[in-house]
């Protein structure tokens, strides 16, 4: 909440104070030549007179109060109270594909990414989001869409479903309800099309690149790609080939790497090289809690890439000030008429 013309408010209040001060200092001078009367002390013993005097005093106090309120509310109204929102209009032509590795090692990070995006959906206006998950094969949970109700619902459900420690469950160290297990199995269903293979990362990325439609339209396209790059199987593409395909389609790649699991540093180096060769950005953090800030970072980077100048959008909130001013003016008129 800000006041756009706060100086108008300040000026009006100062002017009101000045007017009050001037009349206060000159109140003697403004006194109309009084009629001197005598022997009127008895009036204090006449109940109707005492009552009328008391009523008049109450009305006067009310008048002063209402007048002060009127001045304040009118000043505040002229100050234009507004809420400010920073918007980057170019963002509305973005397409974002969340491309998540749902192998057992990644579940914590996936949960966090999905939850963060579910929260961000509220601020979206025109952006389209898709969710694609892969393990040995790839599954599109939902395609690019701007149906934010659906996106939010799906993302929340997904973040809940993926929050499942599969290894722990298999080893018996983690126990989940049947309902939870069913959710998880349903969610990852279709990502294990090839037996005895897991995390076929390059193929997963390549199929994420297929999710983009409207190729003829001038839209910004980006993939948020989360993987530990520990491939267990025979990919059709190499990672280099996959990132090249992404790059040729003018898709920005934002890779998130949570740290090594079983594979050594060569997995990370491969991912880094493949990403950065195609002008992608790579973020690394083994802390799932860092994901919201990383996604923020991605948003910022994208704003720069798009040349989106964030503009301040102000929305006036004149309702309270207007109603108050109106009511106090009505009050002044009514009281003035009553005290006539």
């Amino acid at each position: 909440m800000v006041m756009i013309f706060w100086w108008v408010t300040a000026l009006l209040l100062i002017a009101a104070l000045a007017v009050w001060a001037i009349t206060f200092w000159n109140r003697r001078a403004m006194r109309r030549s009084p009629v001197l009367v005598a022997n009127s002390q008895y009036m204090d013993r006449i109940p109707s007179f005492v009552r009328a005097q008391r009523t008049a005093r109450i009305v006067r106090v009310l008048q002063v109060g209402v007048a002060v309120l009127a001045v304040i509310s009118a000043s505040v109204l002229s100050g234009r109270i507004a809420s400010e929102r920073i918007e980057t209009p170019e963002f509305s032509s973005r397409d974002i594909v969340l491309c998540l590795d749902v192998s057992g090692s990644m579940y914590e990070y996936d949960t966090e990414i999905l939850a963060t995006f579910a929260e961000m959906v509220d601020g979206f206006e025109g952006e389209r989001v898709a969710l694609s998950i892969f393990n040995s094969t790839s599954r599109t949970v939902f395609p690019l869409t701007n149906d934010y109700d659906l996106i939010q619902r799906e993302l929340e459900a997904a973040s809940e479903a993926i929050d499942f420690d599969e290894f722990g469950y298999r080893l018996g160290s983690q126990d989940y309800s049947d309902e939870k297990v069913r959710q998880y199995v349903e969610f990852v269903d279709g990502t294990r099309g090839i037996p005895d293979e897991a995390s076929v990362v390059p193929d997963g990325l390549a199929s994420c690149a297929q999710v983009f439609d409207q190729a003829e339209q001038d839209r910004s396209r980006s993939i948020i790609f989360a993987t530990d790059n520990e491939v267990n199987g025979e990919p059709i593409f190499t990672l280099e080939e996959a990132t090249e395909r992404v790059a040729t389609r003018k898709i920005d790649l934002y890779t998130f790497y949570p740290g090594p699991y079983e594979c050594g540093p060569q997995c990370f180096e491969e991912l880094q090289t493949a990403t950065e060769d195609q002008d992608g950005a790579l973020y690394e953090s083994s802390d799932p809690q860092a994901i919201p800030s990383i996604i923020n970072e991605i948003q910022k980077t994208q704003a720069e890439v798009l040349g989106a100048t964030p503009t301040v959008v102000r929305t006036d909130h004149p309702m309270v000030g207007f109603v108050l001013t109106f009511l106090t003016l009505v009050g002044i008129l009514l009281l003035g008429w009553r005290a006539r």
Partner: protein
Amino acid sequence: MATSLLTRVKARVDLHTSHRARGLIQGRGRSLFKGSGEDFDDLKYYQPGDKVSDIDWKATARSGEPLIRQFNEERVRHLSIVADTSSAMAATAADGTSKREAMILAAGMVCFLAQKNGDLVGMVAGSESRPIQLPSRSSDGHLELLLRTAQQATTTAAAPASSAWLLERAFRVTTRPTLMTIITDEAHPTVEDFTLLRRLKTRHDLIVIRIADADPLQGTALEHDVVDVDSPREIASMARTSRKVARDVAAYRQARRDGVEEMLDRLHISHMLTQGESTVVDDMIALLRSREYRHARS
């Protein structure tokens, strides 16, 4: 103020006096103040040195010899004025004029009649902290001083009205029986002053001239504030315009007036209530005429 107060009073009296009332003023005001010291006793033969104006022409015509009127007591009468010079008298009278000016006019009229007769006029006024007392004299200068003293003492800064003190004071300092004119306002003398007035009545012939106060609400003149000289307080327009308040205030004032008038009637004191400067001369003439008839009957 170039002209003297007495001259101005004379002008006002002449202006106000109708043809019907003119006889009261003329003829040396003889008929106006018929008192105990004025009783006609005898006629005697004119001696050189007697005032020609004292000749009783009717008796002279009947007898063929110049006869003059003879009074058994001293001819000179003592008048006294008890003037309420409190702050209340500096306020506005019922007709919108100043109560002070009405008082000066009333006192001036007494002085004017006294001057015609060569009567002595004294005055008691002031307050406990600033008592005023002027001895009985008859000179024009004294009468002028008397009026001027009363006028100057009556300011809004003067002490509040205390009729009890004033009447007590008048009783103590005026030892000789006088024709005493008490000039005050509608709220005085109060019913509590009954005993004082009765005691004063045993010694003096009393006339009470009361000047009515302006309406303290002034409901039709809202452009002016109303201020009580003794208790300045703001009276809200709401109270001033309320019909109920106006009715209650009028009822209270009427009751107060009735109380004072009833008391004065019980004491057989001549009294009048006048609206202010514009009516005081006419009202005084009417009062003095009614006194004349009363004396004539008794």
